[in-house]
């Protein structure tokens, strides 16, 4: 994960954050070279590294930024007492989940939807994941537009519905039933995949994503939705991937909202602790997602 720092070294907030990080022992004094901003940057890098940075890099391209403005595309300092820690994807990671779901169906018909919910739900707690639901929404928009332009049959609209496995309409398994099923799975590899999904889900729920103030929310009133950090399709280059590709061309037409943002009151130990703890859970979630992605047969065969 790349790290950026957009606060002047002499800025009171950088000095204050450096002090708080030192007091909390989140910062390591061996990183001190006389510049608060460099010190904070090194601390951020070290923190990300400690919470799975290397694993994240294997599947995801994320940028963490510490800034005195919430919007990375604006220089407006909306609150002179506050810093903002944001995480945004440089590009989306890609999971082809279909082959795994096919294998899981053989064990239990409701296992695919349960597995899917665990994986995508965990990532979505922290960063945006683009999946069939986004693609369906996009297709609905295109249909509405096409009807106004002379009829949907005049245009080639991707058939997302047909690439969603029927098992995805099943109800998710309860936690107890899932645990019982895992113990019955003979295939070690498949059991490992299900266990990795459960671990990912557990990690992602260690903390609630911090809320942001109305003041910060207002800065994104006219922004586009956050950029997705993950694309999940059932097959390589299916209609979902096609919709993502198409939608991706307009994602940067307006500035996107940060995928993850946490406000920091740099002199307040509780606020700094909360922000760094949230970043740690985000990183560990993405690291677990990255390890899981490497286990999925769809990604191994085609990625």
């Amino acid at each position, binding site marked *: 994960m790349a790290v950026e720092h957009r606060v*002047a070294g*002499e*800025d*009171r907030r950088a*000095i*204050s954050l*450096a*002090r708080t990080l*030192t*007091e909390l*022992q989140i910062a390591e*004094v*061996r990183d*001190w070279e*006389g510049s*608060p901003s460099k010190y904070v940057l090194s601390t951020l890098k070290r923190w990300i590294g400690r919470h799975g940075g290397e694993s994240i890099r294997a599947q995801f391209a994320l940028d963490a930024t510490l800034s005195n403005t919430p919007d990375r595309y604006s220089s407006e300092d909306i609150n002179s007492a506050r810093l903002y820690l944001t995480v945004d994807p440089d590009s989306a990671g890609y999971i082809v989940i279909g082959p795994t779901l096919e294998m899981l169906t053989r064990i239990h018909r409701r296992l695919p939807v349960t597995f899917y919910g665990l994986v995508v739900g965990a990532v979505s707690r922290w960063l945006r994941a683009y999946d069939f639901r986004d693609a369906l929404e996009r297709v609905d928009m295109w249909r509405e537009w096409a009807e106004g332009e002379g009829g949907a049959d005049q245009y080639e609209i991707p058939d997302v519905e047909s690439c969603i496995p029927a098992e995805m309409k099943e109800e998710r398994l309860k936690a107890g039933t899932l645990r019982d099923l895992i113990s019955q799975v003979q295939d070690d590899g498949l059991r490992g995949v299900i266990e990795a999904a459960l671990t990912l889900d557990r990690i992602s729920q260690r903390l609630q994503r911090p809320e942001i103030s109305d003041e910060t929310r207002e800065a994104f009133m006219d922004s586009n939705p956050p950029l997705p950090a993950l694309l999940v399709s059932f097959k390589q280059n299916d209609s979902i991937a096609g919709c993502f590709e198409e939608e991706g061309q307009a994602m940067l037409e307006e500035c996107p909202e940060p995928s993850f943002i946490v406000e920091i009151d740099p002199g307040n130990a509780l606020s700094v602790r909360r922000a760094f703890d949230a970043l740690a859970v985000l990183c560990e979630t993405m690291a677990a997602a990255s390890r899981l992605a490497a286990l999925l047969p769809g990604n191994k065969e085609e990625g």
Partner: protein
Amino acid sequence: MPQAKPTSQTTREAVLSELAAMAEGRHPDCNTITGRFVRDPELQQASKILCDAIQAEYHHQPASDITPPPPAWLLPA
């Protein structure tokens, strides 16, 4: 009898003390022009007023009042 503090603790205190000096403007780095500017809201405000005044003057000045370009000067495309 108090025990000597471990080295890491001493270093942490040294860093905290240097940061405290920076926060209070006692650190040598604070005496650079940029350092003083970043720490001083009045200096920032004065610069903003000056900058706004120049902008306003530039926008309100009629085109004819603009000093003509020197001979052989190419106008921006």
